[in-house]
């Protein structure tokens, strides 16, 4: 099976950002995403929800360039005021052209 190595970018963020982040991903070149409802704790204790602790995890498989763009976008727009983390890992996929 012919596999290609791409990047899996994972964002964990407070739920109020969901719509905006998905819009941003699309604009930055992601061709799809998978979303999970999660909870968590980090350095920020509280967020704008009676449901503190409820976050979304957004995973998207993209080319390395798009991965960089996404990470930069999030660092620039969300790190300061919002509860959000982002990280990237290499993954092997088949049908590599589906994701770029």
């Amino acid at each position, binding site marked *: 099976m012919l596999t290609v190595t791409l990047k899996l970018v994972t964002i964990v963020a407070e739920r*109020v950002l969901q719509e905006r982040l998905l819009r941003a991903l699309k604009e930055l070149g992601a061709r799809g995403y998978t979303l999970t409802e999660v909870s968590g704790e980090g350095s920020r204790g*509280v967020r*704008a929800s*009676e449901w503190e602790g409820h976050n979304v995890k957004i995973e998207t498989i993209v080319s390395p360039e798009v991965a960089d763009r996404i990470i930069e976008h999030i660092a620039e727009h969300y790190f300061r*005021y919002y509860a959000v983390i982002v990280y990237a890992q290499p993954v092997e996929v088949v049908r590599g052209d589906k994701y770029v």
Partner: protein
Amino acid sequence: MLDILLANLLSPIVLAFALGIIARLIRSDLSFPEPLYQALSIYLLLAIGLKGGAELSHTPGAVVLRPALVTLALGMLTPITSYVVLRKIGRMDRINAAAIAAHYGSVSAVTFIAAQTFGQLQGNLAEGFMPALVAMLEVPAIVVALMLVFARSNHHGSWREGLHEVLAGRSVVLLVGGLVIGYLSGTEGLKQVEPFFVSGFKGALTLFLLEMGLVAARRLRDLKKVGTFLVGFGIVMPILHGSLAVVLGHWAGLSVGGSAVLGAMVASASYIAAPAAVRISLPEANPTLYLTASLGITFPFNLALGIPLYFALAQWIGG
């Protein structure tokens, strides 16, 4: 007064709220799955909308007009008084002051429901169209409070997204949607869904308040962080706003029950619609401040002491 207070403190809904707080304090694993919380809040909002709308459908417009104008006026005024107090007395920065003002200008639907229910038990029924006033009170304060910030400066957050967040937010959609459905289908329509939406209401509310207790208890941990001023603000401001609303409600022709419920509405602080809008529009405001004040201080205060107080006042003025 004392027996009104006791009757309130021993009502199932207040006791359920207390149970929620205690459960959290003893570190119980009791928790409501999020979908249950959402189901209950969809149910409660739609139910009060439906009842209010059916009532509106046979209320002459003239009767509603003055209370509606008073409500709108209070919705514009209370964020401003809150803002001024926070800035001048509390020495709070502009952003956080506006964020908190948005919460105290807007309304907590659960406080409204609790007040209405309390009136029923006291035999001081509020007017049936009160839910329409709740819908009117929810939005303007948030707009006014955001304007206090956006009018002055170019700003990070998104004003339009925040506004959309309130206007198309689920609490407004369900409340207004319920009102319209109730209005169009009328008393006849309501009767079909009565066992579900009317008879079951108080029980569902009890369950919901148990959950509110669980959530509010988490906010209680943060009481120390927010400081004495905000604790005082969260108790005194509701009393002032609530008393003003009782007086104006009476003047606008509302019954004793109606004025008291209006008092509770105006005294209450939003913790669903406002936080979502403020988080989007004023991201640099500190959520610990506005959530702890509205959910950890003002909500329990109103539930336990405020509501009987507004009823006592309304009785004294209008009874």
